[in-house]
């Protein structure tokens, strides 16, 4: 097997140059990422997976559907993806990213501007993306995804392999926009972890065991507003007084939807 020194070198470069507390430093990785992509190290990484499969037919690497996870490090991920088809909606991205097509095809995309008053954690179906502009990234070049300002739609005529370097999600939701109208259609958790916590809170509420009160109380302080609200709702199924206390605190929650929901619930409970 050929050695793959450049992957480790690149990871060390990212660790050295990407200051997680200063997100803008992610863009300093553009040239190292471009050089890394051009080095052919990712093709060798794919070959290495094949080689292991030849040696052991039931071998399974860090594989997901259409994805090889090359490295998941502190605050960033490096992966290779097979883009198979154009997506139905335009998706916002909860992270900064750099995409580089491998192989011989270019990656075609349309970039839309997010509305000026866009706030990622407050979903609003009245928000509309605008000012589309088309672009093309040649093999070996890098597309920088400024996902706090833009959303991107990729036109996939035939499957294309893309190297992805992404930082950790810094936005809590992934919005989907209708391509025809530009309006927001729905939003999902940007990280599985938030979904796991929301669903866990819901299940614990259904199971209604008193031992869950303390964990759920702690969850009402989670940074994600949907997780906080799921925890308050679950508490309501187990311990009314604990839930009322958290609902009253939620009247001052930073998230407007949560403040409104808390006020409405307290009113229905005739507590306020």
């Amino acid at each position, binding site marked *: 097997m050929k050695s793959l020194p450049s992957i480790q070198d690149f990871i060390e470069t990212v660790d050295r140059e990407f200051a997680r507390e200063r997100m803008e430093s992610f863009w300093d990785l553009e040239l190292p990422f471009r050089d890394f992509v051009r080095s052919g190290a990712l093709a060798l990484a794919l070959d290495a997976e094949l080689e292991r499969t030849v040696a052991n*037919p039931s071998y399974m690497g860090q594989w997901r559907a259409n994805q090889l996870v090359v490295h998941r490090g502190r605050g960033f991920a490096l992966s290779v993806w097979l883009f198979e088809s154009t997506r139905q909606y335009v998706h916002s991205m909860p992270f900064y990213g750099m995409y580089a097509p491998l192989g011989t095809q270019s990656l075609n995309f349309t970039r839309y501007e997010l509305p000026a008053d866009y706030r990622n954690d407050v979903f609003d179906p009245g928000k509309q993306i605008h000012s589309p502009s088309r672009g093309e990234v040649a093999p070996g070049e890098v597309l920088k995804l400024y996902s706090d300002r833009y959303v991107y739609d990729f036109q996939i005529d035939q499957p294309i392999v893309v190297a992805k370097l992404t930082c950790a999600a810094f936005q809590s939701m992934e919005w989907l926009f209708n391509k025809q109208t530009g309006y927001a259609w729905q939003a999902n958790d940007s990280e599985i972890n938030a979904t796991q*916590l929301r669903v866990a809170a819901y299940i614990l509420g259904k199971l209604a065991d008193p031992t869950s009160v303390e964990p759920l109380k702690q969850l009402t302080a989670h940074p994600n507003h949907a997780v906080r609200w799921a925890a308050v709702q679950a508490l309501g199924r187990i311990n009314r007084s604990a839930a009322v206390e958290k609902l009253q605190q939620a009247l001052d929650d930073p998230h407007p939807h949560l403040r409104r929901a808390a006020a409405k619930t307290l009113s229905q409970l005739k507590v306020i």
Partner: protein
Amino acid sequence: MARIIETRTERVVSVEEFVDFVQAQVDLSDLDSIATAAPLLRGLANDRQLVVSRLNQQVLNLFRSESVPSAQVIYLGEGRDFYLRANVWPALADLSSGRVHQDQFSYNLAHDHNYNFMTVGYHGPGYITDMYEYDNHVVTGKLGEPVELRYVERIHFRTGMVMLYEASRDAHTQLAPEDLSITLNFMISTPEVRLRDQYFFDLESGTLLDYPVETDGSRRISILRMAADVGDANTQQLLADLAQSHPCRRTRLAGYEGLARLRPQDAENLWRKAGGDSEPMVADAARSKLEALSRA
């Protein structure tokens, strides 16, 4: 045929005891042997704190230690070539409220499993399942191919029931339970499982509908496809090795397809070789490719 195993016990079994028993007593390649773990699985379900305590712990840890990338699968423990998990089955009301999402195996979608597993109802009214059988050996694996699914029975899988599914023989559809329900599953993950296909079926037309994308086989094929798109001479040799000798027919076919993309000038020879594959899925695909080449 999936077996409902009558077992009654008041005894509470721990995860550790279950794992120790299976490791010491159960031959994971033998269904009858797997069935001997039924009383212990039932005993595991008698631990009414099992799921609550795991979830409480995961909530306190913010799911940082959870390796399962799903919100509705709760990992409980593992031994050599098997693991235990709790599966959450949302009611339709849970889904429509948006509080819980549907995982990959949607309700009302007929599918088989490429692994043996035993399951016990743990909480809630339980899902309803329509059970079928089919003969895996006559399925060539081509999408749209007719598959004879023989209806067996409808089962309301209630709390306390134990059922054993046979890999690549039993198929079923599940209907959402009336209220959120939980099962505990004893999953067999011997290496050959990774080489076996899993199918979605179209009951109306009686055909093979698709392959789930998140199975080991589908993931492996996507690696071959990516490697073929960016590969070189070294990749060609690896793809040739996989095309000729990998035990999974879809993988062999993906190997030939990748080679044909990397070496279009040799496509005719490659597909002639593929035509000799023992599996109709590969041989028929090769014939189609040769016909297309001769028309071009």
